[in-house]
């Protein structure tokens, strides 16, 4: 199942940090920047697509108070769909249809992974949007569409970003699985390490993935801070403090 | 003009005593409660009232040590509260709060049984006590198996009071107990509290921000200013009649005299028979009474029953008084009606005098002049 690189190195590293310093070990799985780039690009594409699907759907469903039950169930059991299964099926279909190995099967399976937290958080946030603000917007004559885009969505942004960060971390941490199906990316180090019983290479791969995940999380946090006006951020903090139980539920489904 | 419940009040003994009690919260620059002395007589309702920040709730919560005083001593029934463990102390003091704080996951019966169970009562005793309390606070027994979420706000607060009384504590602390219900229910619950107090005779300390509530339920009112300064302490009527200073006067608001009227009962006025004649009297005698004391009107009483009013000019010489064209008054006041109700009756009565009827028997009249004199007294 796992492609193996074979040459035994002359002086194997004695810890994970040494692994990074020895050019020869790095060379086996391709240059590090290239693999980082692949992981980042797969993850980013999947996140963008997932946002494009989940956010409008969640805003509309939450605005019209529709399909709450069904959506809740789909979101929760959606977490149980093994990404490996989607990947396997997608790779086989993609190969059969001639779309090739990368990147669509990988991105598709990561999109499915990112949907639940994004959808759940956006839905909860819109549902919890300040009812008086929505009322006032209608009262001054905003259309339903304008209420969604100009009132509910902005008010939902803080919680939406929490979901986005959760999704980003999950996507980045899961992307290496693609390597099990022969794809390149940071998972390639882990795959090779598994194949060679090379603990340090596995650790190195894990470290790099974790680093990318943390960087993604932090940069999204920063983006949120710059993008969302402070009053809305504080408002969200206040209301969640006031109603801690609903915050708990929001976290439960995040 | 006497205090409404004077004759039933305390035996004079002090149940709760605060001496130089202070509280400064950590990090606060000013004291929440500055040295405060207060005596709560046994069996009375003492109301703590004042603007926000006056430390009324803090003071209340220091009595059962939900807040520890910074200085001073508090004794309950002669025992310093700090000599007991907080949990022991609290089990002996009933506690009712505005948000009620019923346990949503326990049935009404389980809620009421909380303290008896903490005290280790046996099952039979607990369930007997629960039944007793449900009756006492006026709930149906078939509510016992329900959960608080299924009850209305007023019913929940009744359960809250029942729960506080469960172990029959001598002292009850109530923190804005009726603050969360609508005005109609609030009025009813206040009445129920007074009726309940007639039966159980607890020492009650009640916090409120509603001056009308304070006047209605309090045997004594302690008016606190910001920082826990006691501005005046006394029976509500004393506050209304003789405000100690401008702050008290301002806090009590306008219409102080009208508020006082609600505090006194008709029976507290000196008895006055008024411009009334017996049915056996002659028409001339009646006409004389109408002219001299009745301002034109005379009342006819037959066998202790008040028959009605008749104007002197309408009296027909040929008929006995009982057969004259009598105007019956719209209301006859019971002796325990308030002076406010009496005033209302006077204003709507053609004769400008209200009639007192004690279970149908004529008990005299109330005139505007009598009320005015009562207020000045």
């Amino acid at each position, binding site marked *: 199942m796992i492609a193996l690189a074979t040459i035994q190195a002359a002086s194997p590293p004695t810890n994970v940090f040494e692994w990074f310093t020895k050019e020869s070990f790095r060379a086996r799985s391709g240059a590090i920047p290239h693999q980082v780039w692949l992981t980042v690009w797969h993850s980013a594409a999947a996140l963008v697509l997932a946002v494009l699907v989940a956010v409008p759907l969640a805003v509309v469903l939450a605005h019209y108070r529709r399909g709450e039950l069904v959506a809740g169930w789909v979101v929760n059991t959606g977490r149980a*769909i093994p990404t490996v299964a989607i990947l396997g099926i997608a790779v086989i279909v993609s190969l059969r249809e001639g779309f090739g190995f990368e990147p669509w099967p990988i991105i598709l399976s990561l999109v499915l992974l990112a949907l639940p937290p994004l959808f759940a958080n956006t839905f909860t946030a819109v549902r919890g949007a300040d009812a008086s603000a929505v009322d006032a917007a209608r009262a001054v004559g905003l259309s339903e569409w304008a209420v969604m885009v100009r009132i509910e969505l902005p008010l939902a942004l803080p919680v939406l970003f929490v979901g986005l960060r959760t999704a980003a971390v999950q996507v980045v941490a899961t992307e290496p699985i693609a390597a099990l199906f022969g794809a390149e990316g940071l998972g390639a180090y882990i795959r090779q390490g598994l194949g060679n019983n090379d603990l340090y290479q596995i650790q190195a791969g894990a470290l790099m993935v974790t680093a990318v995940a943390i960087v993604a999380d932090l940069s999204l946090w920063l983006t949120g801070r710059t993008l969302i006006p402070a009053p809305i951020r504080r408002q969200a903090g206040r209301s969640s403090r006031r109603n801690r139980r609903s915050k708990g539920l929001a976290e*439960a489904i995040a | 003009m006497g205090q409404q419940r004077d004759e039933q009040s305390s035996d004079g003994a002090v149940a709760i005593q605060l001496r130089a009690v202070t509280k400064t919260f950590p990090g606060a620059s000013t004291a929440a409660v500055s040295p405060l002395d207060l005596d709560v007589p046994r069996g009375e309702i003492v109301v703590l009232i004042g603007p926000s920040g006056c430390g009324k709730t803090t003071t209340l919560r220091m009595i059962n040590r939900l807040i520890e005083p910074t200085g001073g001593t508090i004794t309950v029934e002669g025992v310093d509260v700090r000599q007991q463990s907080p949990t022991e102390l609290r089990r002996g003091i009933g506690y009712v709060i505005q948000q009620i704080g019923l346990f949503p996951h326990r049935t009404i019966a389980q809620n009421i049984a*909380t303290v008896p169970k903490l005290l280790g009562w046996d099952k039979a005793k607990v369930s007997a006590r629960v039944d007793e309390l449900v009756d006492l606070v006026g709930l149906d027994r078939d509510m016992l198996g329900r*959960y608080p979420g299924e009850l209305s706000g007023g019913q929940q607060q009744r359960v809250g009071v029942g729960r506080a009384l469960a172990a029959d504590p001598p002292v009850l602390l109530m923190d804005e107990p009726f603050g969360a219900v609508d005005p109609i229910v609030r009025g009813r619950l206040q009445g129920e509290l007074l009726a309940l107090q007639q039966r159980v005779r607890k020492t009650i300390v009640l916090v409120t921000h509603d001056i009308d509530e304070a006047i209605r339920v309090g045997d004594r009112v302690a008016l606190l200013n910001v920082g826990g300064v006691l501005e005046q302490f006394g029976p509500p009527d004393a506050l209304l009649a003789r405000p100690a200073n401008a702050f008290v006067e301002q806090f009590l608001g306008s219409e102080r005299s009208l508020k006082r009227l609600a505090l006194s009962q008709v029976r507290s006025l000196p008895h006055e028979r008024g411009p009334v004649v017996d049915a056996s009297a002659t028409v001339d005698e009646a006409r004389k009474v109408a002219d001299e004391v009745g301002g034109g009107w005379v009342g006819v009483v037959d066998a202790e029953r008040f028959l009605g009013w008749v104007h002197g000019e309408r009296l027909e010489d040929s008929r006995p008084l009982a057969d004259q064209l009598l105007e019956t008054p719209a209301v006859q006041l019971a002796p325990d009606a308030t002076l406010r109700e009496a005033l209302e009756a006077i204003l709507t009565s053609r004769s400008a005098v209200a009639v007192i009827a004690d279970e149908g028997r004529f008990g005299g009249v109330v005139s505007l002049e009598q009320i005015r004199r009562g207020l000045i007294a």
Partner: protein
Amino acid sequence: MSEQSPSRATRWAACGAGVLAVVIFVIWARQAVRGLSPDTAATNPIIRWEWVFKRSSTPHELRDLTIEHLKLTALPVAAGLVLSSALAAIALRFRWTFAPLTAVAGFLYTVPSLALFAVLTVYLSPFQAAVVALTSYTLLILVRNIVAGIDGVPESVLSAADGMGMSRQRRLVTVELPLALPVVMAGIRVATVTTIGLVAITGAIQLGGFGFLIFDGYNTQFFTKIAVGAILSVLLAVALDLLIRSVERVLTPWARRRVAR
């Protein structure tokens, strides 16, 4: 996620429809494979039902995989619950530890599961490694929900409990824990369902439950196995989700009756 519970009728209708759908599907599938021999190839290129219904060793293979998948789900969630309770207790007792604790749990979340399985197999047996790794992924959700659940107990209820002279421990056990239950159970549900999805990845270390089917199917280019693995995984999640929901309903009768008001 729903704040308002669906009516009883909706609930039963949904359950009934689900059961009916499964029954109809099984009847249809058995019809569809009638007459096919076990080695029929290419009659149905997407899913070859004869592998599921005609192959004699399939049922007990699937049974073994189900048991393995269940074990790999139940053990980590149970262990995670014990561990999270302890961590949440610390976080509640010493508030300042909450942020670092969740930060560490969040960090564990960023570690790629594949790598964690791989690294741990160096020190532990594959099964132990899988349980330890999967446990670590449940911590974030569970700790957050236990703390949020206990935090969510209304101030007034706590105040009343204190005012009546309940000790701290008694208040925790008889008031706070029961009231936190709905949020805690929601956390357990999410943790369970997420773990079911993650178990498949342990296929990379020769375990996997239904994940074994997925990897095996991929390596042999046998699409049916992947599909069966994925579908069974989701079915297991739905079943456990339902089970936990019913346990929650039984344990929180007060929440159910509130709707009736």
